[in-house]
């Protein structure tokens, strides 16, 4: 995007630090999410990508830093305001997180029934429109247990857009999908973003799929942003870390080996000797 720096971002994260117990997950992270685009947050497993979405949604509070969402700081906001703000955000959980005791139709109708007083006939029309958008109008009477993983995610997507939010947070949307449902999801995320004017944040480690739809990419590792840019910029990046991640190299700045003492020394030490040495 050429106008990255000109407009006020929809989500502005500044100097974010978050620790879980003694483990530091984020250490001074700055991220801007621009309205109308698809922004990808990528990084290896365990870098706290999902935690970042929960922080943006206000489900977790960071130790330091600010997270402005549409001008409101979700780290300090009061609960009532936060719930108002959440009505304008949708979140797609990794496994869909559909309510298992109700049908596909009722799941999509759920936010409408909870937050609006629309007559049932209008709820029905809206639900069918959302289900049509994800191609599952015919599955409205199924229960979540009867859906495949990809279908469950599409229903969850229909539910996430039920209230016409300004922004959708996708948590690992491509994990564990077959090539067809992967393709469907990739297309849906881009299509929905452009057709109803959403802002999308996609957390993922599937490089090819994410790079295909993302306008801007942040690479996270070790609690910091290690590289950022469009996918073309990242490919040309001289960051060794970015190159290792994008090309899927086994060894590099992220070592193949878990830290251990010297291999030869380890092998030549009999376990009884080691035990005696310790004890």
């Amino acid at each position, binding site marked *: 995007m050429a106008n990255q720096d000109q407009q006020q971002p929809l989500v502005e994260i500044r100097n974010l630090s978050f620790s879980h117990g003694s483990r530091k997950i984020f250490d001074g992270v700055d991220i801007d999410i621009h309205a109308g685009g698809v922004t990808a947050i990528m990084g290896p497993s365990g870098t706290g990508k999902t935690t970042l979405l929960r922080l943006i*949604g206000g489900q977790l509070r960071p130790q330091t830093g600010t997270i402005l969402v549409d001008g409101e700081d979700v780290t300090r906001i009061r609960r009532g305001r936060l*719930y*108002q703000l959440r009505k304008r*955000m949708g979140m797609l959980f990794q496994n869909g997180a559909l*309510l*298992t005791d109700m049908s596909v139709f009722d799941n999509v109708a759920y936010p409408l029934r*909870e937050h609006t007083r629309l007559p049932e006939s209008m709820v029905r029309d809206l639900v069918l429109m959302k289900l049509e958008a994800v191609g599952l109008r015919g599955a409205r009477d199924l229960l979540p247990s009867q859906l495949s993983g990809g279908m469950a995610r599409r229903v969850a997507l229909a*539910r996430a857009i039920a209230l016409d939010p300004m922004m959708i947070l996708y948590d690992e949307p491509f994990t564990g999908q077959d090539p067809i449902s992967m393709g469907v999801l990739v297309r849906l995320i881009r299509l929905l973003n452009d057709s109803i004017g959403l802002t999308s944040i996609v957390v993922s480690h599937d490089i090819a799929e994410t790079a295909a739809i993302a306008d801007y990419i942040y690479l996270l590792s070790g609690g910091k942003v290690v590289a950022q840019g469009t996918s073309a910029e990242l490919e040309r990046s001289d960051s060794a870390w970015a190159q290792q991640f994008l090309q899927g190299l086994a060894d590099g700045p992220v070592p193949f080996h878990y830290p251990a003492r010297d291999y030869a020394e380890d092998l030549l030490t009999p376990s009884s000797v080691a035990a005696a040495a310790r004890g």
Partner: protein
Amino acid sequence: MDWLQALGRRGLGVFERLGRASVLLFNIIGGLHTLVPRPALVTYQVFSVGVLSLVIIVVSGLFVGMVLGLQGYNTLVDFGAEESLGVVVALSLVRELGPVVTALLFAGRAGSALTAEIGLMKATEQLSAMEMMAVDPVRRVLAPRFLAGFVSMPLLAAIFSAVGVTGGYFVGVGLLGVDEGAYWSQMQDRVDLYDDIMNGVVKSLVFGAVATWIAVFEGYDAVPTSEGVSRATTRTVVQTALAVLALDFILTALMFGEY
């Protein structure tokens, strides 16, 4: 000194959980008013924790009453007082066995189900998803279940006692030949509405609140894994049983203690 440290850590853990449970109870009670415009949420839960527990309550009540009839008769007949069998059966049931055994059965039948359901909703991120849809799971999921347990328990205990009295009648009058008129009239005469029945109702209200509180807290606080949910379910049953029996002693001392 390690054991002292461990003891301290355990003690702190217990108080921390108690604190979290109290905050949750406070939030649940604070959210009860949101159920007023949506009574269907509560009636559905009354069905699932109350009506679906009826079979076990009725069958257990019948057998407990029949055993009371047998045991009571065997003791009373030595003193030629078998006519008082109705009183013995009724008082044992409405004062003690009705509320207590109902609460124990409730913990096993409904409490464990509540914990497992809420724990699994947490493990499958359904509670998180609700939060992100700006729906408070404490109000939407926990509050109706808590209210339903609180309302169902005294009703279940009353049904348990009524069926138990009938079971005692079958054994005492039908099998052992106690006079039918004496069975019922002595019961009417000696069972007091306030001292006996209302005290039993108060007990089962307290048990209902505590049993459901433990069940929803354990589910909501469960570690969101299959092992965590299974541990939470076990804890619900064990802790409810202990809490009910301990509270029963305290309430009995307060209600019937002569000092």
